[in-house]
């Protein structure tokens, strides 16, 4: 299980820069590490969510050549927040999953933008939201929901086949 978690966190962080591009639709790629962090935080709680977010974000920062620590911080916060609130949410419903992930992605984007503003990030907010954050948030929502459903189906199959 720990190996799986390590692969999920590390792989998610590194895979994003390479394999993630293959999932591009109209120049929009999903934020796979964010989805992985959210899914793990929902199952394992805020501590794990925070740690997983930090590691995945740090790897993502390193892999993308950006400022080291930006995504590490935002994803750690997202992991912590969703891990804390997860027990109170009905996350098994796609009607919650899709908008939930969209909202989380937007919040993460806003947090990242806010953090980068402290370091004089030059991109205009409107364009960034219109062409980067919102399309990616929508993609994350649908891909994440699909992953949740796939995981739920795999677990059901596993339970049925278990002796």
């Amino acid at each position, binding site marked *: 299980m720990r190996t799986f978690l390590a692969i999920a966190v590390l792989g998610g962080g*590194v895979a994003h820069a390479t*394999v993630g591009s293959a999932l591009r639709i109209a120049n929009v790629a999903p934020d796979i590490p964010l989805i992985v962090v959210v899914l793990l935080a929902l199952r394992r709680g*805020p*501590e794990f969510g*925070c740690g997983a977010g930090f590691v995945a974000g740090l790897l993502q920062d390193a892999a993308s050549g950006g400022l*080291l*620590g930006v995504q590490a*911080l935002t994803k750690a*916060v997202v992991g912590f927040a969703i891990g*804390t609130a997860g027990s109170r949410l009905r996350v098994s419903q796609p009607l919650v999953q899709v908008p939930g992930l969209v909202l989380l992605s937007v919040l993460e984007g806003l947090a990242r933008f806010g953090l980068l503003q402290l370091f004089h990030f030059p991109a205009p907010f409107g364009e960034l939201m219109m062409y980067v954050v919102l399309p990616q948030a929508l993609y994350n929502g649908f891909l994440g929901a699909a992953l949740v459903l796939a995981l739920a189906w795999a677990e059901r199959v596993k339970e049925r086949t278990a002796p």
Partner: protein
Amino acid sequence: MRIRALALLGIVAAVCLVLLTVQMRGRTLGASEALAIVTTPVQTALARINRATLGVWATYRDWKNVRAENRRLREEAQRLRVEALRVTETDAENQRLRRLLALKESLPMETMAGEIIAREWGGWVRSLTVNRGRGDSVARLTAVIAPDGLVGRIVDVRAGSSVVQVLTDPASTVGAHVVRTRTPGIVEGEPRGTLRFKYMARDGGGLQVGDVVVTSGLGGLFPGGIPIGRVRSIEDRGAALFSYAQLAPAVDFARIDEVLLLTGNAARDVAASFKGDG
């Protein structure tokens, strides 16, 4: 538990902010390089897997495209083949009709064009059904010709069609003569679908293979000069009263689609209209 989590978040946030501050002050981080040592091989491996997967996918898509294109081209080829056949058929029909029209215009009598709508080729009877009948004022025993020569005569007139007795019908007889020698005789149909020219032995001394036999015009049923066939072989019957010559019909009865019915005065000679064929 909650305090531990908050503490972890605080530590993480502090580490991140320190990292960011250090970077913004223009110092390169050893941590970044250390992480790159870990991430670079993984990224390389993933990129290779990604490329290989994409390559397989691209190959599959190419194969699918080629298959679809192949199917499309096959359909296109099929369509063009049908189109070409149609054009060839139309061209052939056009040529036939042109020849028929030319013959119709050159004949010094009234004619009526007809289309073959049925064929009886059993052996007992050899006939064609033409789409002209009582409604078109077709009369029994009307001569029927094609651009190549004589086809036969109408033996049965119905409301919208007529039956043509073909020259090769075993019951068919036509008065004829050889163009070159003027040898008179009778052309008879045979059960095996061939034609023979029956003539008096004393008149046929100079008959040769290849001689053209045309209608004689005697009897007033068929105009004179319509090609019937060419002598294919001559039977030597010794001292018999009649001799026979096998004829190759001028008209391919199995292939004609359009004919002319000679509805006008049949007492005239029409050899001039067929001079190209004789």
